[in-house]
């Protein structure tokens, strides 16, 4: 099942996603801070989310396993 490298990459991305979207890494973003007038914490969540989707799209569209 996990023999193909494409699947292994997705698995690695999944664990990376779990890490950055949960405690304790999530606690690093200061809820009081803001960037460009937007609160940092929601901004970081949406940003991480978008990066996760983009990476996933790249992995899925550019690998031919």
């Amino acid at each position, binding site marked *: 099942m996990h023999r193909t490298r494409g699947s292994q990459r997705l698995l690695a991305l*999944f664990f990376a996603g779990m890490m950055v979207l949960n405690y304790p890494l999530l606690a690093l973003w200061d809820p009081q801070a803001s960037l460009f007038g937007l609160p940092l*914490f929601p901004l970081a969540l*949406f940003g991480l989310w978008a990066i996760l989707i983009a990476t996933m799209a790249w992995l899925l569209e550019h690998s031919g396993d």
Partner: protein
Amino acid sequence: MLSVPLVVGASFAYLLLLFGVASYGNWRSAQGRSVIDNAWVYALSMAVYCTAWTYFGSVGRAASAGIWFLPIYLGPTLAMVLAWVVVRKMLRIARSYRITSIADFIGSRYGKSPALAGLVTLITVVGIVPYIALQLKAVSVGYAVMTLPAGAQATQAQDWWNDSTLYFALALAAFTVVFGTRRLDVSERHEGMVAAIAFESVVKLLAFLAVGIFVTYGLFDGMADIFARVRAAPELAPLLGDAATFDYGQWFSLTLLAMLSVVLLPRQFQIMVVENVNERHLRRAAWVFPAYLLLINIFVLPVALGGLLLFGSGTMDPEAFVLSLPLASGQHALALLAFIGGLSAATGMVIVESIAVSSMVCNDLVMPLLLRTRRFGIRAQGDLTRLLLRIRRAAIFFVMLLGYGYFHWAGEAYALVSIGLISFAAVAQFAPALFGGMYWRGGTRVGAMAGLLIGFALWTYTLMLPSIAKSGWLPTAFLDDGPWGIQWLKPEQLFGLSGMDNLTHALFWSLSANLTAYVVLSLWRGPTPAETSQALLFVEAFQRNRSTEPVFWRGRAKVQDLLALTTRFVGSVRARHLFEEQARRLGVPTVAQIEPDAQLVRQVEIALAGAIGSASARVMVASVADEDALALEDVLQILDEATRLRAHSIELEEKSASLERATSELRAANAQLQSLDRLKDDFMSSVTHELRTPLTSIRSMAELMADEPDMPLAQRQQFIQIIVTETERLSRLVNQVLDLAKIESGHAQWHNTDIDLGQLLAQAVQTTEEMFRDRGAQVQLALPPQPVVLRADPDRLTQVVLNLLSNAAKFVPATGGKVDITLRTSDAGVQVTIQDNGPGVPAAQHGMIFEKFHQNQDSGGYRPQGTGLGLPISRQIVEHFGGRIWIDPAYGGGARFVFDLPWNTMADTGATDVHTPAPATGHALPPTP
């Protein structure tokens, strides 16, 4: 507010439009040009995940807790990262065994167990009812906001027959019946429904984005403005988050819950697995669907905070901000669009969910019971496809009415999100049995059953009962003090576990008990033969194809019994089709002559499974066949055979691949030989032609002299001179042919020494000085200041240079002829250029003039007046030293010949005779004599 007829009219117009889309989808499907055979449509249909909960509930949640609406969408994103690995396997399994629901999937995995499938169905129905109620509640609240004056409280109708929500629910059920159970062919996909769901996904996304943009940029000055105002308002500022009170445990459990739900919810399973057209669509849909989730969530926080800023907290229901904000600003059209968007979200969910649940109820609850009765059971006759459809239709109404009941009697107390989470936690109980079953061979029916039972019991006790109690239908005393005053049995602090929110608490107890029971009981007693065989088929789904799949069946059956059985459940057309195909496979002329084998029985069972579920299909097939019970050894033996068969087929494949490779190599070698043969023929005819010309003139001169014995001496002298010249030409030609043959065959002798190329060029110029003077041409030699030392055979290189120089001498114009010789060096090697100002070589001949005898191929243009072997020999020599010779195509003022040589190519060979194999130029010569 808007008028009731307008809102109701728009809603029905929208439902009609949906119906049109669905009919279009069905029409295209019937034509064989499916609209849903597309990864984008597949991804959009997956967005049925976004229900009224997303559309209304998220805003409500954001208005009370800030960012907390988000884990419900982060979880699915994480799940979709693994979709290509996990969901693809589910797709493969479901496709292979015609599995049509999650209950069927789990039941089939554990030995086609009807009890397990029935239990999964029961849990689903109980768990999913609140979720359907949520959709009805959302539509009902939305309708009230749209049609009542601002600020008025929606009052629920006291009598159920007066409640518009009931009629809405019934209309939706009727609608679902029309789309979802229209065709007799119950096991096929619902293409029209999927098309309509994808369309609804577009509508709800656009409507929500429209409201979001209106609120953010119409009512406020962009997002930064909203957040700045929120920070300034002391009662709202905590919504932006507070690190100290942020409950990361709950965050994780919500993410996990949503991650499981996106696969385990009946409607998601239906859309993702059952309705999937092509496995490859998953690759794109796996990221497009999360991108959709991201888009629909961007404006949730701005809309929620904007609503709180404008209305103040506590005055308006935040869950209806999407509607009340445009209404309050007089944007009635936008409000109507937003309502339609919400309607899309709710109806999409209800339609797919009730279709999915109805097929579960029909196949896994009703059919197993019906098939036990005398009227419909094993001995009964008659077509049951109509009955199946009727059961499904009734089940749709039944599920919808249950949802309405929950909404009517218990729905008022809870926020939308809390209701939805109860359902999520219920379906999460399937995770151990489902995923364990896909990846662990050792999971057993008993383990799965125990896990599900205990998980469901704990879910009921810790989540469902408290929610009922909080709605006022049970005394709440047992929540606060525990049942019978036993403190450690308090449902929300079971065994004294405190410090968790009630959802995390319930999820922790139910899932961990479920998983423990599943694992422990699976390990307690090993699987039965039937379970082992199904476990193998599921766990190794990717390692098999149809032809090498083991068929775990032994016994005898009559073909007419099987045919009659198939006809009863899937209709005569498809049954006949299946059996005719099998007759072809077995090589018998008619269906009646089929001797049923294991493969046929398996095909029949799979066809039945598509219609009535795998558990009932198993029972029905067993009822008409005389089966041998398989022992574990038999299962292992069948598996062994299949494995050997598979190894054999892989071996065969490899063999045929290597044969194919060998064939193509042989073919290429043959083609090369043929072309060499042709070249040899060409060469032979060219050589004989070249030899004949001087021979002819020698012979005619000699004959002339023989015929005329009294020829004048002067003329005789002249003739003899011609004979001598022609003889010289002849021997030169023969020498060159031999030379070329030697070089090409690798028998030439090379005497390599260190030479100064500059000196060599100067000597060559000196040698040809006479010739150029005769032609009145000027020769210029440009050399670098320092000596250029190279290891090569000086005689051979001189031969190349002389050949090029004599060519140049032949072609310079009679007056003003000019020849330039240049020597350049670089890191890679040396380059010698010899250019003249003659007529040049036509571009078409640039490649050819290095071929043997090509000088006589074309009249006019460049015709070296020699033997025609000078340039081919030069090329052989230069290539022997690892260099290249060519004509510069860019030069227009005459012919520019260039050759380059790498540094010290022959360093190792010294002055010894070198025997090198012929360079693979494709211009081999006949062997030297």
